Structure formats: C-alpha cells, structure tokens
C-alpha cells in the first residue's frame, strides 16, 4: 500500500508521482486495501449491536421497573448500585449467569449481554485482522497479529485463573 520508505523529507502526495491514487475529499483512498475496511466494518458491527442491545435493555428496565426508577431511594447512586432494583437479579459475573438472566427476560441480563458484546469487540478485531492481513497477502502482519492474539488470550486465561 505505502511506499517502501524511499521518500524522505516534507512532501505532500502531489510530490510523489507513483503514489497510487489521489486522496478524495472524504479522506479515503480508492486503493483502500481490504484490511482497513474489514476492521472498520467489524468495529462498527460490534459497537452498534452492543449499543442496540444495551438501549433495548434500558428500555425494558424503564417498562418493567418504572415505579422503582422514579422514586428516590436512600443511599444515593452507590446505594442504588449495591442494592439493585427489586425486579432485577443481583451481580451477574459469568457468561452463564448473563445468558440465564436473558432467558428469564431480565432487563439487567439484556444490558449485560450488550456489555459482553462490547467487551469482546477488541478481541474479535484482533482475530479478524489476521484474516484481513492474509486476504491482503501480508503474511508478516498476519503473523504479528497472531502473536498479539496469543498474548491477549494468555492474559484472558491467566486473568480468569487468578481473578
């Protein structure tokens, strides 16, 4: 995509004749490789699906627990977070708990499901980047990204074991 670093010093794209294509006004190049597009697309899907699920959960919460939501409770926000709401489950701290809660139709479970989609988005981004680099015939970066994924998974597994 980019040159091999043969150009130095201050210059604009116009100074480099072999530059693939001129920049468009939108800041995108026509020569966009698949990598940027795939990563950007994956991030957008992760972000929008998580926001949709969380908003759905919040709407569900307002519908189900309308009474509890508009009445002031003692203890401020911290008390509210610690005691939860009458119609909702307590702490959800495993994937199994969250899925069970979603099946019961709890608003909290739905919100947590959306948060889980959000938390997994960066991991998915790294995993999908490997495929994207391979599609772009960029083995070096596919390898670099594979190592990053390995380190990331090691961290996740160690965290689970230790935490």
């Amino acid at each position, binding site marked *: *995509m*980019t040159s*091999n*670093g043969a150009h*130095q*010093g*201050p*210059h604009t794209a116009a*100074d480099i004749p072999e*530059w693939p294509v001129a*920049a*468009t006004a*939108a*800041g995108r190049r026509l020569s966009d490789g698949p990598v*940027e*597009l795939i*990563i*950007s697309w994956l*991030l957008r899907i*992760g*972000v929008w699906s*998580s*926001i949709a699920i*969380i*908003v759905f*959960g*919040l709407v569900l919460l*307002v519908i189900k627990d309308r009474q509890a*939501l508009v009445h002031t409770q003692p203890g401020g*926000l*911290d008390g*509210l*977070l*610690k005691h939860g*709401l009458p119609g909702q489950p307590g*702490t*959800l*701290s495993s994937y199994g708990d969250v899925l069970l809660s979603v099946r019961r139709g709890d608003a909290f479970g739905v*919100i947590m499901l*959306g*948060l889980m989609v*959000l*938390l997994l*988005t*960066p*991991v998915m*981004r*790294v995993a999908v980047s490997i495929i994207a680099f391979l599609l772009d015939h960029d083995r*070096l*970066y596919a390898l670099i990204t594979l190592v*990053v994924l390995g*380190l*990331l998974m*090691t*961290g996740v597994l*160690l*965290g*689970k074991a*230790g*935490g």
Partner: protein
Amino acid sequence: MSPLAYIAIVLLISIAAGLLGSLLGLGGGIIVIPALTIFLGVDIRLAIGASIVSVIATSSGAAAAYVRDHLSNIRVGMFLELATTTGALTGAFLAGVLAGRWLYLIFAVVLGYSALAMFRKRHDESGAGFEPDDISKRLRLASSYYDQAIDREVVYQVTGARTGLALMYVAGAVSGLLGIGSGALKVPAMDLAMRLPIKVSTATSNFMIGVTAAASASVYFARGQINPLLAGPVAVGVLIGASAGSRLLGQLHSTTIRKAFFVVLIVITFEMLLKGIQY
C-alpha cells in the same frame, strides 16, 4: 435523586468522556473515575469497572471511523500491540510485588516530563524531515492521511521503532499494574519517540487502548465489578461522545490537539502525584 435522574447524569458524564477520549487517544477514565467517585460517591471498584467499559467503548467507537479514514495507522498499532500486551502480562505478574506509592510517583514524573516535551514542540509538525529507521522501513510503517484542517494529504515517515516498542512495553506494564494510563503514555511515546503526526498518534492510541483494556476486562467482569445499571449508561454515553468526537478530529488543527493533550497530561500528572503521596 431518583434512579432515572442518576442514569441521565451518568449518560451526560459519559458523553463528555467519549468526546474528549476520542480526540486525545485516551480511554476517558480520567473523567469517568473522578466524576463517579468524587461527585456521585460510587465505590471505586464499580467506577473502575465502568472505566474499563468506557475505554473499550471509546476505542471501538472512535477507531471504527479512524481506521476507515486512515487516521489510525494499523501497522504501527499492530506492531506496538506486541509490546503493550506483553507489558500488560508482565504488569499482571508484578502486581503486588511493587509498591503502589512508587509506581504512582514514577508514573507522575514520566507524564510530567512527556507533557513538557510535548509542549516544547507544540508548533512542530511531526512525520517529516528525518530518516526512517530500519525496522520502520522493513515493517512499512510510513503512511499518509488526509488532513481536513489543512485540506491536503499528509505523507509521513516513522522512526524510533525500538524506543517506541520499549515505551509501549512500559505503558502496557503500567496499565496492567495500575489499570490506568494506557492512552496517556501511548500518545507521547508515538509522538516523541516515533515522531508520528499528533492526529495519527491519538487515533492510533484509540485503536490500541481497547485491546489493552480487553485483557483486563474479563477479570473485572468475573469479579462482579461491571454493574449493568452503571456500565450500561456509560457504554451508551461514551459511544455517542466518541462517534461525535471522531467526526471532529479531522477538522481540528494539530496544534489545538497538542495543547489540549498537554493540559490533560498536566491534570493526570497531579492526580497521580496526589495518589502517590496519599497511598
């Protein structure tokens, strides 16, 4: 106040955090944590859980746009993630071995130094006028982006790949140890050592911080620190703020971003000094 009013306040705080975070390559923890703990009296454990959610939301929300617009340099990001993930692992192992007080104080000194160094070169545009190093050449780190503020394509070189990698290792270790500072250290490392243009530095930091945070997110989730009533509105607010911010970055002048980053670095420096002293 009623629970609904709290949800609305948390949403507003988070929009601000997402906006600032997406522009400066930070996770928004510097806004979310103090606002929740000091002003709303939330337990620090739940505030940290919300902050991790905020980092991932800022990163994913902003990077979706920055990657498409070539503001994030994904090669630089992927290459440096080798060091940040290794650093985060080291940090997780070292946690408990090193004294927190000294970590905060060292972190404050590093940030203070970075702030001054970045302030000194506030009128300087990076990315040109130097030789790229051998690793940057071999990894094809040089790239270009379209700068809306000056209405032209900016072609830039990259150097100092080794120093950048070492600094990212430290940044990863610090965030593994203290759960903070991933963006505040990443941006100066790319700016000062690798001499990337400031917009590319903040956009690439945004691209990277989600991955650094994802490693620890599963731990906070398993410990029950992710509360749906708090983290849900935080995620929604930050995503709204970050998508607005990601439209703004291209139009802002580099010097404006540099100055804003300088101010935020000074604030974090004092915050860390205070934590170190009180520890």
